[in-house]
């Protein structure tokens, strides 16, 4: 996955705020042209990683390399990094044009050239008709495009996105995702994209890094991480509803030193299945349904079924797990075995 030197390389990065440990030894590489999504629950350290790479904060320990160069002692603007903030951080007292020109003027680009480059960036993102508007006169989607254009003008080696779609509504998010991917492919620049939305993480990322409590729990291609979660946290975090995790010796068999997992789609309704369970609830999602069942020993299992299942709450059903898709984790450490 890594080329001779990666666009970004994080080596045992650590950061704490007082007694709170935000990052606890993070290693990560992002190749040139690669998009890596960072996903994890809030407080897992996703944004801290971006802030450290950007140089907005300093790590307590570890190294940050951009294009093979240790940037630890460089101020933010010398790091060849552009960041798109969650709420975009557009300058409210400036028009879109002013926002785009801001950085160029700070870097003393000549006025004519600056205007021309701002115009090009605006054209690329289709916001030329917004150039004279102020941020508070635009929609969330438009503001996001301005923020992207502003990042583009930095001509960075690395793009950092901090939940840039958190404030967009669902349909817009869907459309923007595709646009963003297209732009990324076109630019061919390394990108780190932070999100807490697992669907976004799976669809956007060449690779996904799952974070928990300041540590990278697993990095890999989205399908690989989904199919072979490295531990029970990743297994429970990715997928909706999450993987059913059952202590060893329970309905899924195994020994007491194991935790076994099976995804809801790997449990089939089968009259001859080995597991017997009672339906507690059925959640119809239109194209599919989630059946929440409970076994005789109290174990709860979520089952993904086709639309319009016949079973009703209270019915007894029999389930068959796909034996090749049963995941085995160590009961103590939670690591995959």
């Amino acid at each position, binding site marked *: 996955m890594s080329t001779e030197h990666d666009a970004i390389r994080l080596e045992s990065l650590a950061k704490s705020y007082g007694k709170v440990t935000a990052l606890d030894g993070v290693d990560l590489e992002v190749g040139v042209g690669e998009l890596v999504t960072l996903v994890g629950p809030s407080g897992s350290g996703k944004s801290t990683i971006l802030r450290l790479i950007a*140089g907005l904060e300093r790590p307590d320990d570890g190294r940050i390399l951009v294009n093979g160069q240790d940037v630890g002692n460089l*101020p933010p603007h*010398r790091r060849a990094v552009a960041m798109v903030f969650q709420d975009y*951080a557009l300058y409210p007292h400036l028009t879109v044009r002013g926002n785009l020109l801001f950085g160029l003027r700070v*870097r003393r680009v000549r006025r004519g050239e600056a205007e021309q480059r701002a115009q090009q960036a605006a054209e690329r993102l289709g916001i030329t008709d917004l150039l004279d508007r102020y941020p508070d006169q635009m929609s969330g989607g438009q503001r996001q495009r301005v923020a992207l254009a502003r990042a583009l003008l930095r001509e960075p080696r690395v793009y950092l996105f901090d939940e840039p779609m958190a404030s967009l509504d669902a349909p817009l998010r869907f459309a923007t995702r595709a646009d963003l991917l297209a732009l990324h492919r076109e630019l061919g620049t390394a990108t780190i994209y932070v999100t807490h939305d697992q669907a976004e993480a799976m669809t956007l990322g060449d690779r996904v890094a799952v974070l928990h409590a300041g540590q990278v729990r697993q990095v890999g291609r989205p399908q690989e991480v989904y199919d072979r979660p490295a531990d029970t946290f990743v297994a429970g975090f990715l997928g909706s509803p999450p993987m059913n995790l059952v202590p060893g010796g329970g309905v899924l068999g195994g020994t007491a030193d194991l935790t076994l997992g099976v995804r809801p789609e790997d449990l089939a309704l089968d009259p001859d299945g080995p597991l017997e369970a009672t339906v507690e609830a059925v959640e119809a999602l239109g194209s599919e349904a989630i059946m929440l069942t409970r076994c005789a020993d109290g174990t709860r299992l979520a089952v993904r079924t086709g639309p319009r299942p016949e079973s009703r709450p209270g019915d007894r059903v029999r389930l068959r797990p796909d034996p090749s898709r049963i995941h085995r984790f160590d009961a103590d450490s939670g690591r995959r075995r």
Partner: protein
Amino acid sequence: MKTGRARRPLTAWAFLAPYTVAVVLLIALPALLNVGYAFTDHTGLTRDPQFVGLANVRRLLSDGFLLDSLRASLFHVALAVPVRLLAAVGLGLLLAAPRPGGRLFRVAVYLPTVIPDVALAVLFLWVLNPLYGPLNQLLGLFGHPGYTWLADPTTARIGVVLMLAFPIGEGFIVVLAARRLLDGRLYEAAALEGCGPFGQLRRLTLPLLAPVLVLLAVRDTILTLQVNFVPAYVLTDGRPANATLYLPVYIFDQVFEFSGFAYGSLITIMLMAVTAVIIVLQLLLVRRWRVLR
């Protein structure tokens, strides 16, 4: 629904009534009476003032003392407003960020504001004392002989401004609060684009605070034209050579010392007009320089 809608304005007026009564009785009515008195021979002592037409206005136009007074007031406002704003904004921005000891410094900056004007003025009598005052001693450290502060027209005016550069608590608090409301991410975005502390001040902080700064400038103009009364009375009593005979001091002299109630009323109106003209000039500049969006 209908009664609710009809009742709501009534409730609002009921709540506003006490304040409205006070404003009418204590401000609007006296102000109107003041305009009326300006065209009489009212002394403040007799019951039946007579209408004298434009006699007071004629007197005003040939009053040499008034010219001194106007000059003193304009000098004062031209120096005091920038100095006070600079102090309030500078200290407000400096102390807005949380830093060790910040609370102590913020209290220190606000403290002179709660000291009564007269007490502060008495304190400045000492500060400005040419023989043993700390200011001259400080100048002495740099080999400067010092000034006879309150005996020389120019330094007397500067002395008054100096004293009024300390009670800046309200402006300071407003700047402090306004600065803290600014989004920290804007500064991070600017830092990423290579904008240093000075650039951030020039390109972000000051433009973003512009509405507040304009408000403070206008307010301080109104205030500054009036609050110089106490220092002038305690420090200089309008002297030397009428250098600190500011308009409020001259009005007080006319009304209460010389029993010229009517003439004092007319100068009050003039003070208001002067204030209004200065504010209009400020707002025109604000528009010209496109300080506000």
